[in-house]
């Protein structure tokens, strides 16, 4: 589903540049549940944003479902995002002024889907997540766990092939976190590819593969593509 080849991301800092990702080579198959881990500043979120087509300023090759993303313009990448990807954020990021129902409708409204069809999709998702009773509530009227539940529901409402989750349980207490992770697991079992960023070993254990990042380098990936050197010195980053 995903192939990254020598993907690099830099930021201009004064006269020089700072590398956030360096020569990243990753292959992810459909149906995987991948965890990206690493210390703060390792480049996890940046990698997630590149995978989610939210970041344009990288170099290298990126293939997504037979699309050569690196050859696509911004508009086409956004199209891929809309069609195949769902996002779950650490801080839920529900839109405060919209009800639960309307929050679920937002990503669908950005696609060419008729109002009637959208209503059916939202109703089905509400039902699937058992939050029909909360559809007219505003985010401020929900608990953190409930908000993130809606966040996940919003990510899957469009039946994405890939869910990207950035610290999905970062703001939740353990029982709520467990509930959300179970949900992810269930979605993965139903065929959705999931890539999560987390600091939590417990959360990582729900997945079937963990990629370690350090200072922008992939320092550990059990399924690293053959012949593509993950050349960073293990856990040192010393030759930069």
């Amino acid at each position, binding site marked *: 589903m995903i192939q990254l080849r020598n993907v690099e991301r830099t930021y201009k800092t004064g006269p020089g540049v700072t590398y956030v990702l360096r020569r990243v080579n990753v292959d992810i198959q459909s149906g995987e549940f991948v965890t990206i881990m690493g210390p703060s500043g390792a480049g996890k*979120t940046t990698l997630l944003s590149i995978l989610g087509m*939210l970041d344009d300023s990288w170099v290298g090759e990126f293939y997504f479902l037979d699309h050569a993303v690196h050859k696509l313009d911004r508009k086409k990448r956004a199209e891929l995002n*809309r069609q195949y990807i769902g*996002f779950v*954020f650490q801080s839920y990021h529900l839109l405060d002024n919209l009800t639960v129902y309307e929050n679920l409708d937002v*990503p669908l409204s*950005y696609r060419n889907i008729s109002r009637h069809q959208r209503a059916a999709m939202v109703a089905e998702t509400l039902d699937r997540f058992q939050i029909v009773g909360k559809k007219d509530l505003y985010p401020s009227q929900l608990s953190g766990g409930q908000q993130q539940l809606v966040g996940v529901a919003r990510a899957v409402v469009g039946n994405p092939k890939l869910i990207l989750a950035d610290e999905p349980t970062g703001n939740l207490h353990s029982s709520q976190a467990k509930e959300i992770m179970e949900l992810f697991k269930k979605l993965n079992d139903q065929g959705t590819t999931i890539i999560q960023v987390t600091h939590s070993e417990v959360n990582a254990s729900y997945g079937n593969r963990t990629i370690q990042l350090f200072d922008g380098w992939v320092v550990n990936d059990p399924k690293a593509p053959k012949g593509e050197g993950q050349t960073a010195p293990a856990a040192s980053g010393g030759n930069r």
Partner: protein
Amino acid sequence: METLLQDVRYGLRMLRKSPGFTLLAVITLALGIGANTAIFSVVYEVMFRPLPYAQPDRLVKVTLQWKHGGIADSVTPVLASAVLENNRVFQSSAMEFPATGCNLAGGGAPEYVPAKRVSAGFFGTLGVAPALGREFLESEAAGGHSAVLSYGLWQSRFGADRNILGQQIACNGETYTVVGVLPRSFRYERRADVWLPDRLAHHLQDNGLNYDLIARLRPGVSLAQAQEDGRRMWAQLAREHGSAWYVRNTEGFNFIPYQRWLARGLRSSLLFLLGAVALVLLIAVANVAGLMLGRTTARAREIALRAALGATRARIVGQLITEAVLLSLLGGAAGVLLAWYLNGGLKAIFAAKVALHMPVQLDLTGLALNGPVLIYTVVISCVVGILAGTVPALHSLRGQPNAALKQGERSVGSSRAQRRGRNLLLVGEVALSLMLLVGCSLLLRSFLLMRGVDLGFNPHNLQVAQLSLASRKFDNTAMVTQFQQKLLEKVRGIPGVVDAASVSSAPLEFGLNLPMPELPGKDCSDNPLEYRAVSPSYFSTMRVPLLRGRTFTRTDGAGAAPVMIINRAMARLCWPGKDALGAQVWIGKGMEKEGLTDQPRQVVGIVGDMKEYSLDQATPPMAFVPQAQVPDAIDGLLYQSFGLLSAMVIRTSGPVDLSLPLARAVREVDPQQPVASVAPMSQLVSDSVAFARVLAILMSAFAGLALLLSAVGLYALLSYHVSQRTQEIGIRMALGAPRERVLAMVMREGIALVAVGTAVGLAAALGLTRLAASLLFGITATDAVSFVVSVLCLLGVALLASYLPARRATKVDPLVALRYE
């Protein structure tokens, strides 16, 4: 007091701390307050500044109330006489007789100067003492040949000779002894350099409303008492002169405070302008209130801390209002500088054009930011400060102090109440702007329609020369005709001149009107008849179309059959549905006593209508008579009694400066005859709409300013909203929102507010523009074109103002959604 000082100190520190905010607010307020100060200085000058007379508030103008509405500014000799002899309320009166000019001779080249004939005691009634000598005595008014000079003429023609008293001047061929010189500061309705005595008894046969009467109330008598006395006198007049036309058509005397009467023509326009700048100021206030509201949001923590430390609500509100007042006083100070600059422009405008049509007492070239104007500025600055400060001050009380302290600024930042407050301010701004735009569009369209009006003649390459034929030698038709014929011959010989003709008064100038003779048309006799004496080539020179019959020829001379030409307005009014050609018209039939009588004349031609009074007034019924056939009595009325300026209209092949060759031509015909003025007809036309132009220019400026302020307000509001919604926009983009959708979302928000403001503004404009109905020409106050153009203009600017922040919103990096802590 100590609290106030502390608030002021703290307020100044806060303003210093945010120089960007302070500068923007001060500039916004300066624009609003400056425009208000500048216009108020005009309003004060015209309506409130005491006239340059002793106790000017005791002076009243004697006018007549027409039965069909409106007032007549002048009275007939019979009415004036009744007031002067029977009143019980006036201390004295000042009488002005029909205008006359003076052809000065001797002591230099002949020169035309405006002159007036006034009653004995005229200057005393006004409360003005001559700088030299004295004013007219009753004995002089009876026929004495004495004169009072203006300060300007005494300086320019007589070298400020202090021995001028007792010297003789030659005016219109007669000799007058100078008995006084007026002070430099003396001003009266129209400029006059020579003042001559006259008395009512000489004019009792005149039935026209040609006599101006100003009276000074006796000490202790109120205006209401004077009006009561006026009603008493009118009852007596109605018994004695009930059949006179001026009694039948009027309801009685109306004594109007003199200053109010002088300002009557400007009053509604100035109040309209003052209303317009008040709206501009309100928009500025809304802008600043919006800015302050945003700033209060950022200061929620500070305000919460103050409350936590025990500050009462009143104290917090007081602090915020003090800051707002400080801000508006700074804006007021900058506004005074702006007004000072604007006044320079206004003075130039008024001096150049409008002053021509204004009473001289209202000397707008002396506009100044004097004490009363500055007091006005300080007062409106304080009011503006309180208004602008109240909205954010009240909002500051809504937040929960502990919430603000706990969660910091962000959680309080996007409160719905504050957002609603700012939205409401913007809606108000848009509504006010639209009202101004509609007002401006109406006036502009009026002005353009007025400029585009068909004059009935071709003003291009047409010049108008005016001469006073008030000298005794011109008191008969033969002399006038002979002089004009010789002069026209000479003028036609000037290079560049295509044709020339004479007329007793030029279009758009004062002319003679006479009672309408008895004619078949039903509505005909209620109208006065405009009477013009013309030379044969008048219509061809003016390029006035001949509709029926023929124009005059040289054969229509003194001994030939009496003929006349009428205009289309008269033909339609007096011969509705019939042919006027060949009809007999006897002007002045039965009026031998008044000296107006003519002989029956045959209508030999009908010409097109020409604008005679002004561009915005319908053409009156007119009769044209060959100058050579004008009866001596009417000739005397035209050039002697009323002193109308005889005009020569001169058609040229292109732009030519005729002043020198024309003066030479006149000198060759009569060395004692000066030329009063020479000007292109197009300039006279342009001058006649000068005030409408000034009004349109000022309204355009104010509407432009309002639009700019509203656009800035909308831009600031949406920019603020975008900055508040950066994260939301990022999330939406992360969820797949295309940039066009984000652009549309922000713009929709702006346009929705503008749409609500537009609806409110339209409703208000529909109600308010009715007040401007009297200023409009050719359109009604609900003119659809003006409304549509205004709305389109507003929407165009709103789209632009919304587009910029909306475009910025599309640049939001969706990563903010991921990076949010």
